[in-house]
């Protein structure tokens, strides 16, 4: 396959960026999207040009490092698929593929397609923990957990923090991420002591970091490579509402 890649090139955080066209020949349909970029980068290096910077790590869809807007869709056209797991067979010969970094004030571009997602770490710091006894590991199944709760918590725990929800959101909101993290711990018995303060604190941190406000536009969930459902946001809202009405997040 022959493709034309229109890639966002930006030399540094404060530099101006622009889209640059690259013709890539002999793209194999079996390549992953990142492997195609590797091939292009090797050519650029041989030609003495600066290779395209992009984040990647595990390349098996579980680390959350990779992620880019491919033709205006976070992680490209395949549902529930990270960029590294996206294969070139989903494109056709002669396609023009526009590749841009996530765009959000909270995710400043470091270089080309690499953005700083440290803002997600700030949200995690605000409530992504439980009070747990340290020491030896507790017995498995020492605390009974209803199966449906365990399933929902696991579904939310699948969030890899890639930032696609923020990138896809017309408001630049990180509610799906925040909701996934709050749901993950808030549904389990171990997460109950901080359940309400977690919801309130994580949301307050989210808002303070210049993420936009959620209007339930519903763009995030279809973009999520892990299929985190939109209902997580309702669950976070419910906990925040209950906490603010009853003061459950403050010491008694």
């Amino acid at each position, binding site marked *: 396959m022959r493709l034309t890649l229109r890639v966002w090139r930006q030399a540094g955080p404060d530099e101006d960026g622009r*889209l640059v066209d690259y013709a890539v020949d002999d793209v194999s349909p079996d390549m992953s999207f990142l492997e195609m970029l590797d091939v292009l980068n090797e050519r650029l290096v041989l030609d003495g040009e600066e290779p395209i910077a992009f984040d990647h790590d595990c390349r098996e869809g579980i680390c959350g490092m990779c992620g880019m807007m491919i033709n205006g*869709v976070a992680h490209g056209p395949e549902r529930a698929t990270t960029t590294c797991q996206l294969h070139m067979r989903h494109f056709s010969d002669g396609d023009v593929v526009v590749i*841009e970094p996530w765009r959000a004030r909270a995710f400043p571009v470091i270089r080309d397609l690499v953005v700083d997602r440290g803002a997600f770490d700030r949200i995690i710091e605000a409530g992504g923990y439980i009070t747990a006894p340290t020491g030896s590991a507790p017995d498995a199944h020492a605390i009974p957990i209803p199966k449906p709760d365990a399933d929902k918590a696991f579904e939310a725990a699948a969030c890899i923090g890639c930032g696609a929800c923020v990138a896809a959101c017309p408001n630049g909101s990180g509610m799906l991420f925040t909701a996934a993290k709050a749901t993950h711990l808030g549904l389990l018995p171990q997460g109950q002591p901080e359940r309400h303060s977690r919801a309130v604190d994580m949301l307050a941190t989210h808002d303070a970091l210049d993420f*936009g406000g959620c209007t339930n536009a519903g*763009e995030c969930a279809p*973009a999520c490579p892990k299929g985190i459902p939109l209902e997580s*946001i*309702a669950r976070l809202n419910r906990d925040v509402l209950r906490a603010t009405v009853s003061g459950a997040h403050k010491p008694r």
Partner: protein
Amino acid sequence: MAVTGGAMFLFVIGHMAGNLKVLFGPEAFNEHPKWLRSIGEGLLGHGGFVWIARVGLLLSLVLHMTAAIQLARRARTARPARYQHRRPVQGSYAARTMRWGGVIIALFLVYHLMDLTAGWLNPVGDLENPYGNVTADFRHWYVSLTYAVAIVTLGFHIRHGVWSALQTLGASNGARQRVLRGVALGVAVAICAGFLAVPFSVLTGLVK
């Protein structure tokens, strides 16, 4: 947004019910505002209920618009650099048109109050005879068209608004999500149909 929108949503339902009295003739329709003013007359005085409702609705409207402007400004701050190439993936048409739809509804509201509450823009403008005002209005095709556009915009606004409010207030969950979306759509269609019944009846001669 959810709470103030909910208050205005309840008003819209009541307003629609009142409008439908036009189908039962001039006496029934003209009696309706008199009845509204007599609610709780003993305690609130004549027209007291109407004024309380007006203050409450105005307050809801101002807070609703304030929240909408804040959200729009936050959204703009949150994405200073726009995408060069962007395609809406999933979001419904209703969700994407909430802001401009709200502006259209607000403009229509101004016209609507000047037309039928104050009577300034009405061809008849007799405040003692709302039935005459309404029927005179809708005989003009452009008034009916403006009204229809505003009502359909309101329908889209309610379609996303009802669902979004339930989500914001935490009422939705995985099992209920599909049902709630259906309810929001059904309510929006019912409201559109209820409001459009009036100009339809006038234009087709069902109501003279």
